[in-house]
């Protein structure tokens, strides 16, 4: 799969997701960032709160009805691409949407208080991992889909908790990155495998 195909697929997928959801994520993220900045919370607690809320938004985006329709579109399965290639292309749009909430929250926080950008890497990582795990829910029904969403949420919560427990910022960043990288990679691989085995029958 070349960059041109990846870009074209990501643009097609992004074009089918609603802009209202993206705007709502930006607005709510910004608001949460501001509220946290006005509250007596420390930055660490605010970051953990944003990480968890951001993961919820990322899961909602990745497995929204629009994303489900788009991922199951017969049009995609007629294209000469392997499952893993489709997975990469289909992951771009949810990942882009997923990072909107934490970025907006960071902007809201930094309006009122000083911050280090590196502290806000955790919400970004949590949102990305949650979105990648939740992608597999788009090709499953009922309790199986719910199971994937729960897994995504638990993973994000686990990463946030790990970061909160650590007293050393640098060490916690490294630990979260070391965990998040393989988790994201395997989530994307699993989505690719699911796409490769999937038979598009929803419209018949």
């Amino acid at each position, binding site marked *: 799969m070349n960059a041109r195909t990846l870009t074209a697929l990501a643009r*097609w997928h992004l074009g089918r997701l609603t802009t209202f959801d993206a705007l709502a994520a930006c607005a709510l993220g910004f608001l949460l960032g501001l509220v946290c900045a006005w509250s007596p919370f420390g930055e660490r607690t605010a970051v953990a709160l944003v990480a968890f809320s951001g993961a919820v938004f990322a899961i909602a985006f990745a497995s929204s009805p629009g994303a489900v329709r788009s991922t199951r*579109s*017969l*049009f995609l399965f007629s294209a*000469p691409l392997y499952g893993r290639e489709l997975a990469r292309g289909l992951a771009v749009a949810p990942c882009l949407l997923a990072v909107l909430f934490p970025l907006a929250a960071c902007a809201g926080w930094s309006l009122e208080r000083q911050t280090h950008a590196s502290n806000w890497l955790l919400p970004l990582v949590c949102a990305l991992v949650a979105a990648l795990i939740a992608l597999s829910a788009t090709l499953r029904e009922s309790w199986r889909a719910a199971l994937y969403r729960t897994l995504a949420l638990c993973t994000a919560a686990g990463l946030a908790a790990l970061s909160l427990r650590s007293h050393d910022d640098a060490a916690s960043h490294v630990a979260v990155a070391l965990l998040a990288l393989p988790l994201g990679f395997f989530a994307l691989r699993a989505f690719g495998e699911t796409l490769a085995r999937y038979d598009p*029958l929803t419209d*018949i």
Partner: protein
Amino acid sequence: MTVLRILRANFVRAGEELVAPFDLELRCGERATHFSADARAAALSARIAAAVVKPTTGTAYIGDFDTHLQAAQAKRCVAFVSASARESGTFALALDFYAAAFRLDRAEALRRANEVISALGAGAYARNAALALCHDTSLIVLERPAPGVVETLALLRPRAAILCSHVAPGTLETLAGERAFEALR
């Protein structure tokens, strides 16, 4: 040259046999119609022939490619036109994606798509056909085409083999293959 060979392919889902085993062989320039008892079976048999759905048992080859093991290569040799109102989103973005996936120049893909649309007219089926036929292919699979579509596409792509799936209530998987391009060749 054989472009499509299906050997005892069927499709089973949740213990129910949705498509009974069928055989089919199609060469360049030939045309065949696969009749099924209901719309679901008609759609599935077309999708099996187009490598979009994998048969539960049996095998299907498009050119020399096994649709189960070499799905991506097999899809490169086939144009599949779905009957469903395809949720392909904005036509320009969908065409961009197909042009990239089939490694075509965008202008060339657009020219071919426009050729199909001007021949078939506006409408969801014409749009689906335009997207599917943006690349040059030796096999065209049509899912429940409207009357006249096959003849029009045969004139546009005289060397391609065309397989149609149709619903014939009360008929169980009978195959009516015919050589229809003698006059054209």
